Each structure stands twice: as structure tokens, then as C-alpha cells.
């Protein structure tokens, strides 16, 4: 691609990736969540794949596959964590530890450190979606060998 596209991609890639991370991280407070944030981060990856040559990412297919499997396994493990009560019971909510603060009553801007296992599940789904969509776009970019331009 041209130098304009490459420069814009170089500037925009970290911004889009950070916005995807923000959407995932605030999934239990604001609109969005694991799927939406993962899609935004994957679109940042697609921007880089369109702007630059994908040949440098040729050996990274295993990394994407491992990341996707890790997200799925983390989601199921977090579901099994509440098996003392029921499957998917939210054992971390209100427990005081990680994401364990009690939710404040009344109107408030939203407390990030709440909701128990839900933010962790959002991260798991986000990594799964990022790796899955990223692997699709990467395989599509690598398919067929040489570009004609």
C-alpha cells in the first residue's frame, strides 16, 4: 500500500488496540463487552494486515490458535469455578478480592472493581474473538502466495 496508508496504520494501530482493550475492560459497566472489544481489536489487526505485507506474520498462526484455545479454556474454567453452588455461579462477586468490591447503591459512574467473574469472562471471550477473527484475516491475507501489487 501507499505511504499514506502505512503511516495512518502505524498511528492508528495502537489507538484501535487500546480502544478494544477499553471496551473489553469496561464490559460489565458500559455498552460492549468481550465480543465487541475483541472485534475492535481484530479490526486493528486487519488494518495492519491490509497496510503492510503479511509475510512477516507467516509463522504466527500457532500463536493465534493457542490464544483462541486459551480464551475458550479460561471461560469454561471460570464457569467451573462456581461449581460449589451451580455451574457459572459468581463466586468472586462481593468476596473482596479480585473484582470483589460490593456494588455501590444509587446513581454512580460505575465501579470497575466489581462483578466478580464477569470481567474475567469478558477478557476470555475478548481474547478468543481477537484470535479467531485475527486468524481468519491472517489466513485470508496469506492465501495464494504472491500479491500482484
Amino acid at each position: 500500500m501507499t505511504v499514506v496508508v502505512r503511516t495512518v496504520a502505524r498511528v492508528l494501530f495502537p489507538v484501535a488496540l487500546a480502544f478494544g482493550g477499553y471496551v473489553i475492560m469496561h464490559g460489565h459497566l458500559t455498552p460492549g463487552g468481550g465480543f465487541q472489544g475483541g472485534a475492535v481489536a481484530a479490526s486493528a489487526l486487519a488494518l495492519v494486515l491490509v497496510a503492510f505485507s503479511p509475510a512477516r506474520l507467516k509463522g504466527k498462526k500457532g500463536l493465534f490458535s493457542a490464544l483462541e484455545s486459551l480464551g475458550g479454556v479460561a471461560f469454561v474454567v471460570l464457569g467451573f469455578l462456581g461449581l460449589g453452588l451451580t455451574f457459572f455461579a459468581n463466586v468472586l462477586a462481593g468476596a473482596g478480592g479480585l473484582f470483589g468490591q460490593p456494588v455501590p447503591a444509587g446513581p454512580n459512574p460505575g465501579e470497575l472493581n466489581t462483578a466478580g467473574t464477569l470481567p474475567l469472562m469478558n477478557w476470555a471471550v475478548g481474547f478468543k474473538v481477537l484470535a479467531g477473527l485475527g486468524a481468519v484475516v491472517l489466513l485470508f491475507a496469506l492465501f495464494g502466495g504472491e500479491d500482484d501489487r
Partner: protein
Amino acid sequence: MTLWASLLVMSLVMTVLSGFLAVVLRDLLAAALALGAQGLFLSLAFYLLQAPDVAIAQAGIGAALTTAIFLLAIRKTRRKEEE
């Protein structure tokens, strides 16, 4: 007509217009970009209809990822449509 309603009507009209452009354009690169613009205007309409969750998903998938896939496909084949 309120500002909200006029913005909604404008985004919906632009959605239809960009979809029409994506069909009739002969240059496939321009057609792919028109399809991306259609997804973006549809995402704006979703946002104005108070569905920000759907709007983020539409902007990420419909506007960005499908356009990227179409651009990669055009790069691997040819740019002009044949009669």
C-alpha cells in the same frame, strides 16, 4: 423535526445511498469502500436508535473487518469488474 429524528433519517438515507453505490460501481475497490461506508452509517443509525451494543459490533465487524477482507480479496484478484 427534532435533531435526533433528522440525524436518524439522514443516516438511513445515507445507508441506502451507499448500498446502492456498492452495487452499481464498476471499480471494485470503490464498491468495497462504499460497502464499508454503508456499515458505518448503519452503525450510526443503531447508535441513534439507542442500541450502542449493536452499534459497536456493527462498526467493528460490518464496517472494518468485511472491508479489510474485501480489500485483501481485491488485492489478490483484479480491480475492475468485467462485463
